[in-house]
């Protein structure tokens, strides 16, 4: 049945595409339509159909009777959110193009909206993470009088203006926990990534410059560690770490940082070694060696300045990866430990609310808010990294 609908839709769109092309050829006769493939015409029609479908859904969410409208609540949020994000990114870029030094203006001029949006989000997260205690209205593990307050602050729907995003099952303010979650989740991920870079980067460059048995030994060791899927390895080590930590939960969080840093440093090692090796074969390194320069000068003055761009991009990617691993571990219950608030644990604790979505969409949003907070940051970082890689590769495909 569904297949039949799909087939009819496909053929219909194909016909529309054909008609569009024929019309374009007949009426305008430009070479663009002459050389257009049927698949391209079909693509246009498909896009038009999708946009129309979304518009219809949005219209329903605003003007449909109350027994249907809640079902389109999340679609509305998604569409409005997307438009808002795009607008914010665009405005931020426009701001960057007019303010600041000549150099920074030039950077913003060559930047796509996605990257501008990414930078904006990263800045916002950094501010929230650093000033979390000032911004949060309540403490992260402060149990308040009322549990299960619905987000939205509308008393008619079970909300409370004191808790704009509601409270969880034991009565902690979700907004405060989200804000402290930024500090904890992002903070631990940042520290972990830095550790991984310190370890992997140092060894990688040493291996690249010195070569020989040190390189062989380290590389084989890293090969073995990388043969175990990283999340699985992290879970295994966390099982052992939890035995070591016993009831000291802060110790377990510390172990987690070290474990993930070590596992991720293998990837950093691979990259910095490869980058280092690419630079080491350059003639200017040979010239410096023949001049009689020492190892320190070679690494810090000749190699590192040329490795910043790929390393920075890798830092972004590694951060995302570490951040997601920590979130996944917390979600699975072996990551950041209470009483610290963190997004992964919040998603797990609040997941049950999602079942109210059909009739009380506001009540279902907390777990999605926490998960979305994770996704938003990683998407933002990836947008920036993608742009950095694209512009540094010099490839204008």
């Amino acid at each position, binding site marked *: 049945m569904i297949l039949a609908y799909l087939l009819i839709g496909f053929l219909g769109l194909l016909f529309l595409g054909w008609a569009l092309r024929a019309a374009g050829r007949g009426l305008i006769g430009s070479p663009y339509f002459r050389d257009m493939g049927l698949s*391209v015409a079909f*693509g246009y029609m498909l*896009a038009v159909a999708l946009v129309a479908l979304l518009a219809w859904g949005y219209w329903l969410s605003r003007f449909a009777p109350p027994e249907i409208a809640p*079902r389109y609540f*999340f679609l509305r949020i998604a569409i409005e959110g997307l438009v808002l994000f795009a607008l914010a990114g665009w405005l931020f870029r426009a701001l960057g193009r007019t303010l600041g030094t000549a150099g920074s203006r030039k950077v913003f001029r060559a930047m796509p909206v*996605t990257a501008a949006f990414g930078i904006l989000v990263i800045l916002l997260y950094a501010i929230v993470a650093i000033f979390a205690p000032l911004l949060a209205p309540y403490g992260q593990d402060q149990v308040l009088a009322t549990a299960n307050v619905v987000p939205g602050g509308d008393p008619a729907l079970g909300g409370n203006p004191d808790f704009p995003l509601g409270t969880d099952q034991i009565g902690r303010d979700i907004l405060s926990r989200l804000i402290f979650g930024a500090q904890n989740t992002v903070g631990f991920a940042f520290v972990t990534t830095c550790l991984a870079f310190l370890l992997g980067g140092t060894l990688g460059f040493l291996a690249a410059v010195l070569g020989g048995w040190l390189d062989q030994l380290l590389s084989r060791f890293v*090969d*073995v*560690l990388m*043969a*175990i*899927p*990283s*999340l*699985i*390895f992290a*879970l*295994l*080590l*966390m*099982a*052992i770490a*939890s*035995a*070591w930590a016993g009831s000291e939960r802060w110790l377990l969080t510390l172990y987690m940082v070290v474990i993930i840093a070590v596992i991720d440093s293998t990837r950093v090692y691979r990259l910095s070694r490869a980058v280092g090796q690419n630079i080491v074969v350059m003639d200017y390194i040979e010239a410096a060696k023949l001049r009689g320069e020492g190892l320190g000068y070679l690494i810090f003055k000749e190699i590192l300045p040329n490795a910043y761009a790929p390393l920075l991009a890798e830092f972004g990617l590694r951060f*995302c990866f570490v951040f*997601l691993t920590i*979130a*996944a571990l917390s*979600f*699975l*219950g*072996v990551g950041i430990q209470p009483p610290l608030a963190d997004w*992964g644990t919040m*998603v797990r604790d609040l*997941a049950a609310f*999602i*079942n109210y*979505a*059909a009739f009380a969409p506001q009540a*279902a949003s907390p*777990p*999605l808010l926490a*998960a*979305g907070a*994770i*996704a938003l940051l*990683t*998407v933002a*970082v*990836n*947008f920036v990294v*993608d742009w950095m890689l694209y512009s540094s590769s010099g490839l204008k*495909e």
Partner: protein
Amino acid sequence: MGTVAKIIAQRLGLGILTLFIVSIVIFTAVNMLPGDFAESILGQGATPEAVAAIRRDLGLDQSPVSRYFDWLGGAVRGDFGSSFAQANFASFTGSDSGSGLTSVAQQIAPRFANTMFLASVAAIIAVPLSLTLGVLAALFRNSVFDRVVNIATLSSISSPEFFLAYVLILVFAVLNPWLPSLSNIYEGMSFPERLEKTLLPALTLTLVVTAHMMRMTRAAIINLLASPYIEMARLKGLSPMRVILRHALPNALAPIVNVVALNLAYLITGVVVVEVVFVYPGIGQLFVDSVKIRDIPVVQACCLIFAAAYILLNLTADILSILSNPRLRHPR
């Protein structure tokens, strides 16, 4: 063909060696646990006799090296020893030690089958979808289509699996009750029923893996289309279809096979979180549960299975790309 056979034999040997060393790493890691398994199972008030009995049952009284080889020898035969959780239970019920222990293999086998089923469903959807999208994005690169797909896949890659999972649950299980949000699979279920219950977790995995695979396919194809022999084929006046099918495809096979194998390897880790979200009775969920209750033999066994599958897929990618290289297939 001699050289190819030699290279493949080398890779195989290297793969087995890696797996061997990985097993040592896993075993050593587990043996870094503080104290004694037996004590931690029975608690501090246990009598020395009970502790000694458990130790004997679990073979803890032997040297680490001989324990390792016992474990490895068993693992090769599919025998991963006994589960501690079950041992614990057995000691409480007071039944004779030994007979009450369920083997790890018995626990893992059905769940392993379930996980394979989930991963296959995801792969069957993801592979054709991502290859098509990847090739299309490469052919229409820098078009609106390409940019939209780029943003969508980047977002999908960056999102945690559980976010995608809950969004899918929201849309397909709660708002529109089409599919079940819990995948309680049991033996003797009919295939369509089983498929229905597996579909949502499989779709979640598909979303993550498709994004990765599609981006890598796109990059591989763009790289390929930039090569001078494709320009030459165009300058010979061949039709676009022929350029793609005859000149691009045979050379794209190696990178694409590589992409597919790498992403299937990625699927294996992705399975863990997704299984937990959907309460899917697979090996990933068993693994997480065992980690929480520190059931070490199960953790060890799952870890080894995951690592073996991962190494095997990477090895397959390696070997297939060697086989598809004409320089190696037709040496001078």
